[in-house]
């Protein structure tokens, strides 16, 4: 994925998360959708902007830690309703 394509993906994901919030959709599913989109954006920035995809071993480790963080945030979002 080129840098420009990564930027386009980031813009699309940002618009999608803002659209979900503006649509008035509430509750757990909307929260999980917004957090999943944020997770996707973070992965694009790490792998394309920060070029972490050049170091696959490190990239997998960072993806695991980011996944654990997002799982924690999602768990707390579900617990909060």
């Amino acid at each position, binding site marked *: 994925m080129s840098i420009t394509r990564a930027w386009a993906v980031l813009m699309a994901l940002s618009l999608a998360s803002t659209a979900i919030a503006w649509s008035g959709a509430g509750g757990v599913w909307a929260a999980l959708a917004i957090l999943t989109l944020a997770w996707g954006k973070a992965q694009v920035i790490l792998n394309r902007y920060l070029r972490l995809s050049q170091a696959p071993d*490190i990239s997998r480790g960072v993806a695991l830690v980011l996944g654990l963080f997002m799982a924690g945030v999602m768990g707390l979002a579900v617990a909060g309703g």
Partner: protein
Amino acid sequence: MSRTPTEPPARGIEALPGDLMMWVLIVSELLVFGAGLLAFMGVRLTDPAGFAEAQSHLDRTGAGLNTMILVTSGWLAARAVAAAESADTARTRALLAGAAALGVAFLWIKWLDYAAKGAAGITFETHPFFTFYYLLTGFHAVHVVAGIVILGLVAIRPRAPTVEVGAMFWHMVDLVWVLLFPIIYLLGAGA
């Protein structure tokens, strides 16, 4: 470091792009912001209705616009790295200046947001939501200021390694915002 065709591809930490110390800084900053965001989510459990009410006072449009601004700024910074690797000094400087200018635009919108909160009498102590809001977004804004300074400094003599380090710091600022924005501004917005 250049490699001969017979050398195996770099693995592990040797394959890490950019400066190792910048990665240490990035991981440290992500841990600090990550802990802050998890604490925010934890405290939110104690008063979901209060947090939702407090969140309704935020400017989601401005914050959404700021997300677009930072993502685009990161794109310019990434392109500046490519320009620096091509030894195109003028283009590198122009791209770094564009990235920094968008950083200033981000700060201006953030300042308008803070000014509106101040005019409405919303402070650190109004509600725990706003304690986290000011701490996390304020700490992030300080990093945006630092990033603008760093982009300006590397633009003076834009060699590829220094431009890459400056851009890495800027991408870290971008990365923190894409995680902070939905958690602080969007979660529970439709509730």
